[in-house]
């Protein structure tokens, strides 16, 4: 973990999710695909099943981070790929009854800023709309699998 040193030209692409929870693995599949196809110099990748402080720690020292994750967004058809800046992600621990074990990513990032750590100047989120799933599986549903190429392309455009 790099808490102090800035690598102003470096970029990290994070595949987020649980790789054995069906469509929740979408972020991993996108990043694994990009790793095989190759990325521009200075772009690093990581797949994580972690949030909050752990995710923040992984992002420190990079100038630009792209997070790829499956999202439950009922207003969007399954497999829709969308992008948004990190600032639009809500910080649920500003309210009641929201904690499981960690703090939220927005709060973790704010903490890192206040501590003077090298927080990315830009964080983009690439979302893939999916349905709620509680069943363990290492396969994506067809709708999500077919969205992976577009998601990869979306990540490339953001780099």
């Amino acid at each position: 973990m790099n808490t102090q040193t800035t690598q102003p030209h470096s970029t990290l692409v994070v595949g987020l999710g649980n790789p054995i929870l069906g469509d929740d693995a979408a972020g991993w599949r996108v990043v694994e695909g990009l790793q095989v196809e190759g990325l521009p110099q200075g772009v690093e990748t990581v797949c994580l099943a972690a949030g909050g402080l752990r995710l923040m720690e992984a992002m420190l020292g990079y100038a630009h981070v792209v997070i790829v994750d499956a999202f439950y967004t009922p207003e969007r058809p399954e497999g829709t790929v969308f992008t948004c800046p990190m600032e639009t992600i809500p910080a649920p621990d500003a309210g009641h009854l929201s904690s499981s074990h960690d703090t939220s990513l927005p709060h973790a990032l704010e903490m890192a800023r206040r501590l003077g750590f090298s927080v990315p100047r830009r964080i983009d989120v690439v979302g893939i709309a999916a349905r709620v799933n509680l069943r363990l599986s290492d396969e994506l549903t067809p709708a999500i699998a077919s969205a992976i190429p577009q998601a990869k392309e979306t990540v490339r455009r953001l780099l």
Partner: protein
Amino acid sequence: MKRITIDPITRLEGHGKIEIFLDEQGEVANAYLQIPELRGFEQFVVGRPVEEMPQITNRICGVCPEAHHMAAAKAIDAVYGVTPPPAARKLRELLYSAFYVTDHTTHFFALGGPDFIMGPDAPAAERNILGVIHKVGLEIGKQVIQARKYGHRVIEIIGGRKIHPATAIPGGMTKAISEAERAEIESMGRWAVEFAQFALGLFDEVVLDNPEYRDLILSDIYTHRTYYIGLVDAQNRVNFYDGLVSVVSPEGKRIGKYAPEEYREWIAERVEPWTYLKFPYLKKIGWKGFVDGVDSGVYCATPLSRLNASDGMATPLAQEHYERFFETLGGKPVHHRLATHWARLIELLYAAERWVELATDPEITSPQVHTVPTATPSEGVGIVEAPRGTLTHHYWTDERGIVTQANLIVGTTNNYAPISMSITKAARAFIRAGEVVTEGLLNRIEMAFRLYDPCMSCATHSLPGQMPLEVVIRDARGETVEAVRQFC
């Protein structure tokens, strides 16, 4: 860039729910926490080589992958009837001690501590880690991140990766550590011991020296006289990695200790018609409902439970705090659930001390870290203490080592009944004759389940990284009186 509003639930695992049931008079009859559970575990693992289990099960949960990795590794040792060499056993426990330091630190400073440091009635928006660093100072935030960084580093050295370790295999570990790595681990461990003492000092200053908080801890609101379980070593001292599970009664009497393979003789699971959750209870005592007392088989498995179920801590500084804990709170066992936060910090100190002990063990750099399994695989149980409770993995295989059946009792599951009981008590204080005092209710319910440090399945690996919850209050006919939802 176009601004897009995202539905607050951005994770795919559903969300937790608290249901509060009122009787005809509008008083609280019962309250339950419902946690979404991942399904299909057994179907997922049946047919796979059992050696894959430490890698698969550490993906179940984004909060304690190390606990699943270790329980799985121990279960596979048992499946193959193989004993890892001493250095392998010690490396596993060393990794696990460092993991405990990161996990307990995160809980206290990000979740449990803010209730006290900011105050139980502080606005929810302030009761978080940002509030803590604002009030206590930026240095505390840096120390928390440092503790986590060192923990991740040890896991990376021994486990091969910063999270989701990969090195425990049947019969031991895939790699030994070098002298340079050992020295680095020792130095980080010594820092962790100092940090743990600092955390306990802060708890003294903020909580124990405040008469209001002492009264809150000792009050009846979160007090339940249940049974307690926890792993202990041969001298009945707390151990996170190995030993027998000690079971003590609400009166503090040890009613027995069980080996991992005996867990089914001790633990049974109650099924209720209104939830898919199963409620574990002590088989020998029996299920009497969501009640405490010596006749009720409800037990608790938490840091507080581990202290109650043991005769002491195996390291000197933690032992001093253990003694002070029981002296201060009126002897063993302690039933005041809010004392769990204090117990967690004593465990933090123990984990840090154990980290140094193991890092300075002459055997720790031995290259002998693997015993080749030669027996035909069949069945095995592995138990470790996850930070949030006793974790049991049980696998059955065919003679080729292919999984034919699997059963897990995860840490939080042990505490489903006590968590529900604590929430019920908290709700009773704020719901009278059908009148709901919403603000106080939410704060106190939050404190009730927070102290157990429940793991909401895989809630933490997705954006924004937290578990939304809703509270539903139902009258005697089952109709919804009020639903309090936050980010749901």
